């Protein structure tokens, strides 16, 4: 396994954050303050974000939408950070809380929730593993576990990436090794590393000079050289046999077509002198994750921004090049500088963004801003990811039954043997799709409407029946547990009439209400 080393102060901070979270429910007293870094505070960064965003809106004469409601904020930030909607009880407590700092406290609580790591792992797993027929057969759980743990302990991003990119050993020893097994060719790694950690789409330059930039084929192959000494051993489809080493003169199993042999060179940078006997990846990683690297911090800042807002400051998030400028270039620069200065503190950056007014704007169009989709005048409405949808549905209807034939399925595809993975595969959108675009089609709609699992009422209905005695209170419970808000007067009346019409069996009537709620746009979207 990776070494559990981290600087002492980080460790101490982690403990305090954890303690803060344990004490820091929004209803109670102020949590113990974590020591502030010798840096700008998250609040100051949030204010900086708002300054930049507001300036552009003023220039363009576009009205910003007002601050979102507590209900909007609660559902949004829960989905964005923990990857799942809040329970009815959490919603009720949050909406009723009078604590003025409740939003800030909620952000901290969610960042300390273990589901944060799971959510980040869901996102990064999809990014790190190509969806090819080969990689689908590799067991990815060790990587998921490594990602989950790393994000939850808030491992500094530079260290996390370094661990990933210099990984050796078997997946059982080191979950990060799965990345290499799933990307068994040097071109796959080169494309992936440049997209994810440099924020550039260098893959076109594999075969020809880049059409819109000055990037040359040699830039691509110069970068690719750093990964040439990696060796994959054993059969990645068999547990315990496959491993990754970087030897003296290793060769990756298969070289892509059109490979060009050029000396290793950092992207648009210098050509390091490398001893033949030394492994190349650590040298590359040191360059990559250096504070001074102009790409590294920016790539992650832009990606996190895109994750939270549904649109990167540079969009698409991995297409940073002169012809595709950022909507707010100075903001991107300043955030990247802050991120690097903070020791690549991922949770810290997320906290700062979520504290901003920009993040907390309503998604309802306001004034003249309905047509703006790029200047953050109002929040973009995003569809839930398949993972978010599955986890949220489970919360509402109860655990899904494990898929049939799971043994046979496991042999064919070890990663789809559980209900969640199958659901995700079924709802998965096209990789290149815009994150704000609704991707589900008729089969997905049919499944949400008609699958027995989503029609049997389930835990939320039982909870409502158990905890509340009036139809109105029960309907409210269903709203809180699905949409994180209370019903409007008109909604309450409509649904109450429906439940009453369905006669003596209130459970049936409430199941109908739940069916309507989970099939609504409002449920499948993050507003």
């Amino acid at each position: 396994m990776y070494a559990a080393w981290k600087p002492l102060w980080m460790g101490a901070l982690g403990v305090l954050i954890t303690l803060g979270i344990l004490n820091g429910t929004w209803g109670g007293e102020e949590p113990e303050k974590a020591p502030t870094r010798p840096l700008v505070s998250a609040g100051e960064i949030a204010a900086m974000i708002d300054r930049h965003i507001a300036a552009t809106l003023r220039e363009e004469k576009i009205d910003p939408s007002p601050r979102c409601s507590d209900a909007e904020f609660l559902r949004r930030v829960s989905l964005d950070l923990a990857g799942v909607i809040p329970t009815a009880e959490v919603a009720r407590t949050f909406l009723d809380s009078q604590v003025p700092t409740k939003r800030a406290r909620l952000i901290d609580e969610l960042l300390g929730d273990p589901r944060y790591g799971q959510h980040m792992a869901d996102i990064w797993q999809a990014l790190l593993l190509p969806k090819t027929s080969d990689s689908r057969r590799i067991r990815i759980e060790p990587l998921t576990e490594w990602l989950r743990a790393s994000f939850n302990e808030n491992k500094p991003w530079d260290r996390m990436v370094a661990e990933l990119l210099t990984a050796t050993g078997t997946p059982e020893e080191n979950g990060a090794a799965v990345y290499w097994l799933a990307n068994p060719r040097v071109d796959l790694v080169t494309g992936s590393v440049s997209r994810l950690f440099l924020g550039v789409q260098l893959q076109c330059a594999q075969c020809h000079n880049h059409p819109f930039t000055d990037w040359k084929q040699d830039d691509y192959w110069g970068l690719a050289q750093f990964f040439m000494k990696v060796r994959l051993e054993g059969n990645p489809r068999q547990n315990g046999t496959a491993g990754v080493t970087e030897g003296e003169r290793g060769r990756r199993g298969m070289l892509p077509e059109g490979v060009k042999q050029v000396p290793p060179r950092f992207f648009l940078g210098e050509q390091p002198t490398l001893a033949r006997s030394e492994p190349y990846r650590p040298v590359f990683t040191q360059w990559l994750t250096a504070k001074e690297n102009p790409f590294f911090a920016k790539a992650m800042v832009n990606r996190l921004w895109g994750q939270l807002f549904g649109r990167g400051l540079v969009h698409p998030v991995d297409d940073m090049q002169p012809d595709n400028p950022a909507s707010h270039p100075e903001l991107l620069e300043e955030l990247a500088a802050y991120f690097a200065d903070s020791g690549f503190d991922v949770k810290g950056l997320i906290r700062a963004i979520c504290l901003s007014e920009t993040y907390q704007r309503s998604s309802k169009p306001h004034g003249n801003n309905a047509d703006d989709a790029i200047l953050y005048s109002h929040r973009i409405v995003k569809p839930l990811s398949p993972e978010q949808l599955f986890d949220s549905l489970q919360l509402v209807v109860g655990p899904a039954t494990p898929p049939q034939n799971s043994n046979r399925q496991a042999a064919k595809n070890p990663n789809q043997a559980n209900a969640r993975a199958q659901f995700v595969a079924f709802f998965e959108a096209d990789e290149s799709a815009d994150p704000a675009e609704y991707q589900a089609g008729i089969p997905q709609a049919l499944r949400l409407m008609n699958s027995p699992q989503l029609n049997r009422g389930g835990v939320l209905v039982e909870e409502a029946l158990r905890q509340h005695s009036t139809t109105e209170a029960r309907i409210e419970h269903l709203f809180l547990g699905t949409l994180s808000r209370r019903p409007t007067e008109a909604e309450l009346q409509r649904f109450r009439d429906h439940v009453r019409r369905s006669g003596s069996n209130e459970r049936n009537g409430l199941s109908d209400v739940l069916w309507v709620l989970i099939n609504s746009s409002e449920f499948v979207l993050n507003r």
Partner: protein
Amino acid sequence: MEPKLWKVSSHLVDLYRRDFLKLSAAGVVGTCFSGWLNILAADAAKSGVKHKSCIVLWMEGGPSHKDTFDMKPGTADSGEFSEIPTSVPGIRISEHFPKFAELMQHAAILRGMSTGEGAHARARYYLHTGYREGQGGLVYPSIGSIVSMELGQPDFPLPNYVSIGGPSFGSGFLGPRHQPLVVNNPDRGVENLRAAVDEQRFTSRYSLLEEMEKGFLKEYQAANSQAHQTTYQRAVQLMQSREAKAFDLSQEPETVRAAYGNTPFGRGCLLARRLVEVGVAFVEVTLGGWDTHQDNFDRVKRLSSVVDPALSALITDLKDRGLLDSTLIVWMGDFGRTPKINNRGPKPGRDHYPRAWSTVLVGGGIKGGQVIGRTDKEGAVVEERVVTTLDFMATICQILGIDYTKRNLAPGGRPIRIVDKGGNPVTELFA
């Protein structure tokens, strides 16, 4: 690589959608579902109206022309297969299409394809849309979506574009109505097609849902909420339709299923026939595995033996039902493969080759029993009757009775031709 215009375009798409949403929120467009049962009952009578249909058999990866429909026996790198004669004197094809050879009188082979995109993703995009990926910063509709819009009846209960065995390409700026219904496994058809509660209860649930949706859309004006609603409306329409039975392959006798070959692709072709029978305008069936950089001959042989019974049964069945003249079958892939055999691996293969290759058209009222175009003796260069991607798209449209010069409105009010300027139909196909 996405060009910079993408940014502008997604913004424009949004603008465009928002206009639509405003109308929709105001109740100007959009189907009201309260009366859907009646609408559908009335519909059933109307769907007897016949339009042409199209079935694309998409050979994912790019089939080797020299080992299928443009063989070059006795020349260098001619490969391992032999030619056989067909029902049309003078036309010879690979020995691994014996059944199809007997039906050659219905088919035309275009041997002059020359399409200019040699990378899978870009070639697939180009050959599905007629536009190069990213061109002008737009997302173009695929031919399936175009056919759905031009030929499909707007109130037809089934989607007018069904894609079997692969997601294919979407509707681009034509919007969610013309997105394909994707059937991953033809054996299972469309899952969860039946409501879990009785009809009356489902109806009352659905009308409550409509109320919810109206309120949300009005407040948030979100394009993805509109898309969600459109998708649901189509799904419910599908649930209620008699035509949905077409998805149930178990209604076919075993002998028929066997004729198509016991393969997922064969069943996909059978499903395509059933869908065309009830009036679906466009079906695409994907068969993967043609990217034969390695082990070309074993693989092409195996794949050919998957295609041969399926394609032949499809032709015969359509003919027997009087549907062949109104149904165009297109056999095509990403591109052809190199005339030279590579020697990289232990089992040689052929690489990507868009410069000269072949497609096959069957039915749809074309003049069959002919070969159009000729390549040189290596199968490397088109010597006669070049067919570009634009020519090809125009040809498909012409056969189906679609005016390929028609302009559809893209975001920003840009009129975009169905097939860009410069495409001319292959007139030899029209008797």
